[in-house]
C-alpha cells in the first residue's frame, strides 16, 4: 500500500513537473523561433532593399563646373569637346554599360529642389553649385572600377562616384544587425534543444512504470517512444504557431503600419517572403524538437 501511495505521489509530481516543462518548451520554442524568423526577415528585407536599390544605383561622373575644386579641375569648366570625349569613352565600354545619360546643372538643380522641397537648404543652393554629370547605369554594378579607370583622369572630370559604395555601408549595418539576431536565435535554438532533451528525460523517468510494462509485454520500441516524440512535436508546434503569429504581427504592425509609411523611398519585405520564413521557422522548430526528443528517448528507453 505504501509503495502504491509513493508511486501515486511520484506520478502526480511527474505530471505537474511535466506540465511546467511543457509550458517552458512551448515558450522557449516560440521565443527562439520568433528571433530566428526575425533574423531571416531582416535578411529578406536586406535582399528586398538590395534588389530595389542596386536596380537604381548609378555611377555618377561629375564634370568640372564653376564651383569645382581647382585641384581636380585645373582646366576650369568642362568644354564641349571634353564632354563629347568623356561620353565616347563611356560608350566605348560596350555592353557593360546598360544606359548612360547626361544631367545638366539645371536638371540636377530641379532634382534637388524636388528632393528637398521643404528644407531650408534649398535657399542656399543655386544651379551653378551643382555640377553637370553623366549618369552611367551598369549591367553589373560590380564593374564600377572599370568605369572609373576609363574616365577618372580625363580632363573635364571632377569626380567619379559609385552610389553603391554608400549603400554598402548601410547594408553592412543591416547585415550586422541580422548576424546578431541570427546569433541570438541559434543560441536560443540550442537552449530549446537542451530543454527538450531534459523534458524528455524527466518524462521518461516519470513514466518508467508504464514504459517498463510496455517493454515487458513486447510493445515495439516505436510504439513506446512515439508518445514522447509526439508530445515534443506538439509542444514545438504550438510554440511554432505562436512564433508564426509573432512574425505576422511584425509584418502587419511594424513593417506595414510603421516602417512603410515612414520610409516611402524603399521597398519592404513582402508577404511571400514572410510566408516562406514562417514555413522555414515552423518546420525548423518541429523537426528540431522532434529529433531531439527521438534521440533522447532512444537513449533513455533502451530495450
Amino acid at each position, binding site marked *: 500500500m505504501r*509503495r502504491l501511495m509513493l508511486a501515486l505521489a511520484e*506520478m502526480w509530481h511527474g505530471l505537474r513537473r511535466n506540465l511546467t516543462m511543457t509550458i517552458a518548451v512551448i515558450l522557449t520554442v516560440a521565443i527562439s523561433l520568433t528571433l530566428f524568423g526575425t533574423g531571416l526577415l531582416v535578411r529578406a528585407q536586406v535582399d528586398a532593399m538590395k534588389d530595389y536599390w542596386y536596380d537604381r544605383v548609378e555611377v555618377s561622373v561629375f564634370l568640372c563646373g564653376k564651383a569645382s575644386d581647382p585641384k581636380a579641375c585645373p582646366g576650369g569648366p568642362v568644354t564641349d569637346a571634353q564632354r563629347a570625349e568623356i561620353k565616347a569613352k563611356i560608350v566605348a565600354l560596350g555592353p557593360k554599360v546598360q544606359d548612360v545619360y547626361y544631367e545638366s546643372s539645371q536638371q540636377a538643380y530641379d532634382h534637388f529642389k524636388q528632393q528637398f522641397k521643404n528644407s531650408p537648404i534649398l535657399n542656399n543652393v543655386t544651379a551653378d553649385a551643382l555640377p553637370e554629370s553623366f549618369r552611367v547605369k551598369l549591367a553589373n554594378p560590380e564593374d564600377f572600377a572599370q568605369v572609373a579607370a576609363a574616365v577618372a583622369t580625363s580632363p573635364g572630370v571632377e569626380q567619379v562616384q559609385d552610389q553603391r559604395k554608400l549603400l554598402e555601408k548601410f547594408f553592412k549595418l543591416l547585415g550586422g544587425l541580422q548576424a546578431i539576431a541570427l546569433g541570438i536565435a541559434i543560441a536560443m535554438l540550442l537552449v530549446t534543444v537542451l530543454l527538450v532533451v531534459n523534458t524528455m528525460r524527466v518524462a521518461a523517468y516519470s513514466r518508467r512504470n*508504464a514504459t517498463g*510494462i510496455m517493454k*515487458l*509485454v*513486447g510493445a*515495439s520500441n516505436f*510504439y513506446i517512444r512515439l508518445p514522447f516524440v509526439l508530445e515534443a512535436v506538439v509542444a514545438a508546434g504550438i510554440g511554432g504557431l505562436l512564433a508564426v503569429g509573432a512574425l505576422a504581427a511584425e509584418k502587419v504592425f511594424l513593417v506595414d503600419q510603421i516602417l512603410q509609411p515612414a520610409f516611402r523611398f524603399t521597398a519592404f519585405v513582402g508577404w511571400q517572403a514572410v510566408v516562406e520564413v514562417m514555413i522555414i521557422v515552423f518546420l525548423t522548430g518541429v523537426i528540431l524538437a522532434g529529433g531531439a526528443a527521438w534521440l533522447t528517448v532512444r537513449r533513455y528507453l533502451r530495450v
Partner: protein
Amino acid sequence: MIRFEGVSKSYARKNAAALTDIDLSIDGGEFVFLVGASGSGKSTFLRLLLCEEKATSGKVIVNDKDVAKIRRWKVPAYRRQIGAVFQDFRLLPEKNVEQNVAFALEVIGEPRAKVKTAVADALEIVGLADLSQRRPGQLSGGEQQRVAIARAFVNKPPLIIADEPTGNLDPTTSLDIMRLLDRINRTGTTVIMATHDAAVVDQMRKRVVELDAGRMVRDQVRGVYGYAG
C-alpha cells in the same frame, strides 16, 4: 522448450559471477521452481530468459532459437511469447483492472474486439470478473497479483515467468496464487517461478532447481524447498 548450455554470466563491477556454467533443460508444459538465497542468481536467470541481458558465455535456447542472437528490433516480438509476473505487481495505478490487463494487448496493437474478449477471459480465469472496474489501490495484494497474472496470461503465451510472485503476500493468499499458476500450467503453459517461499514449494511438489552463488546445486523432480533428498 528451454535449454541452458553452459551458461555463465558475469558483471564487470562484481568479482563473483552471477551465474556459472548452468546446464539445464525445461520441457514445454513443465512447472519449475527456481530456489536459492538472495543473490544466488535467480533473477539473472530470469533476465536472461527475458532477453534483458545476454549471457557472457554459453547459450540460452528458447524454442530452438539462441536468445542472444535475436536482433534488437525482434526482441519485442520474442517477449510477446513470455508472460512475466513480479513481486511488486507492476500495475498502473491510474488504470482500473480491466484497463491494466487490456494495456498489455493494446500496446502490441491487437484489435479492440480481440482485446475485449481476451481481457474478459483472462479476468474470468483469475476470478476477478466482478472487480474489473476497480483500481489497483482498491484491491488487496492477492487481488493485485491476480491482475498481474491476468495481464501476463491474456496474450496466451507458451511461457510464464514469475519472480517471487508471493513475496508480498500472506500464506493463504500465496496458496491461492499458486493454485492459479498451477491451473494456468495445466492448460499447457510452461511456468518458471523464482521463490524464497518454502511453504509453497513444499506444498506443490514440482520440479525444483536450486541455485547457490550462481551454480546449480540441485535439480529435483517433485522436490521440496529445503534440503536435498
